[in-house]
């Protein structure tokens, strides 16, 4: 195993631990979850559609996201997609909130 792979798996393990801890500790409380769902439908919905079936931006339905990894989706939410209208949300959302949104998208509206 090369160092970089070992490093990656180490960080992967840490990330997994944080994620599990985050879920069990309930870092996104009910109030914030409500706000995030509102944000997703109303603000993301401006481009991706109120049903998230696409518009200026691509569809964000569970089927449409099937082949996309969690890490990549989280990165898109936080950092945007340069050269497109997708903005970086990192100034407004935490990493945990982006993860919550990815999980939410996987389930579908």
């Amino acid at each position, binding site marked *: 195993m090369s160092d970089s792979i070992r490093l990656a798996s180490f960080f992967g393990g840490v990330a997994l631990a944080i994620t599990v801890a985050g879920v069990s500790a309930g870092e996104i409380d009910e109030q914030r*979850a*409500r706000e995030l*769902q*509102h*944000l997703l*439908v*109303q*603000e993301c*919905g*401006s*481009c991706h*559609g*109120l*049903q998230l*079936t*696409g*518009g*200026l931006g691509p569809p964000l339905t569970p089927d449409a996201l099937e082949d996309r990894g969690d890490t990549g989706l989280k990165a898109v939410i936080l950092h*945007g997609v340069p*050269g497109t*209208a997708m*903005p*970086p*949300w990192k*100034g*407004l959302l935490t990493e945990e909130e982006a993860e919550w949104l990815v999980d939410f998208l996987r389930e579908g*509206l």
Partner: protein
Amino acid sequence: MRYGRTWLPALVASLGLLLASTATQAGELRGTGDLGVVIEREAGSLVIVEHSNRTTLARVEDLGDFSHASVKFSRDARYAFVFGRDGGLSRIDLLTGTLENRVVQAGNSVGGAISQDGSLVAVSNYEPGGVHVFRADDLGEVARIPAEFGDDGELSRVVGLVDAPGQKFVFSLFEAGEIWVADFSDGDEPDIRRFEDVGKQPYDALITPDGRYYIAGLFGEDGLVLLDLWDLDAGPQRIMDGYGRGEEPLPVFKMPHLEGWAAADGKLFLPAVGRHELLVVDPDGWQEVARIPTHGQPIFAVARPDGRQVWVNFAYPDNDVVQVVDVADLEVAHEIEPGPGVLHMEFTPRGEQVWLSVRDEDRVEVYDPDSMERITSLEAITPSGIFMTWRAHRTGL
């Protein structure tokens, strides 16, 4: 874990009961000059309103996906044509409060226009990319204009569709970077003139009130592209190049609308993209004459009919605030907080009232733009666009 809006059906039911009683009083003669519609974004419905007494007259439901919606009016100002995100085109009778016709003409559409003579309604589509044209009286199909570009006939999404004098429609191709002029003056087969390489990713456009200049905003580069419809042979010209060059743009959480352009005191007021500023442009020479710092990323800049004020709303997370620019000194003179999610602003024809939709509080607020006092408040479900019938007689609106 889903937080549905459980109160929504109850609100619809109670408002529906209320509105049913007024809608059945049709039969009394009345004009349409003081009417308007308010899009109810999440419910996929709209309400018909009047601004003489500031009341709601009727609700029309089941109009599809209004994630993005816009409205044009027939030349007699009796019918509203509503363009939904799902490709739905609905024709609504404002006097009877009923849906007359509805076609789902594409998979994903963004806006529309009505021709100079009022006989044709055009819709700009993302999917399939192009423009569909219908007869205004029965929504029968007249023409399909696929937005093909490049060598392999790829279709481009179409944005910035407007009507222009001479029975023309003008629109921009987002992926292709082109502007097309479709001339219907010889009948249902349009004569199409294409302008290529106008700039990267035109995302929206406006036409000046005289119908002479078509101006598209470019998402892919700094600057705007201008087409003089009096002199098409001159081709597209770049204006305001290099605006903001060398500065790191701010994230844009919602794309500004140029359709909501404002012309006041001989100048144009445009939302900047990626900057919390309003651009002021002198059409004589197309030079930037000022930048007005604003509270957030501007979405709409709307001039009061007398041109003395320009009202500006903002993208998330600043969409609870509206600022008012005094055109005489090009500064923000007033700031109000109507509530969370102010999506649109519309003046009455002579400007003594301005109507604001407050999406997250299910209200439409009516303000007096002189005193800046709230006059009244109307209920509407997640209101977004507000469109009044004076638009029926304005080129480009």
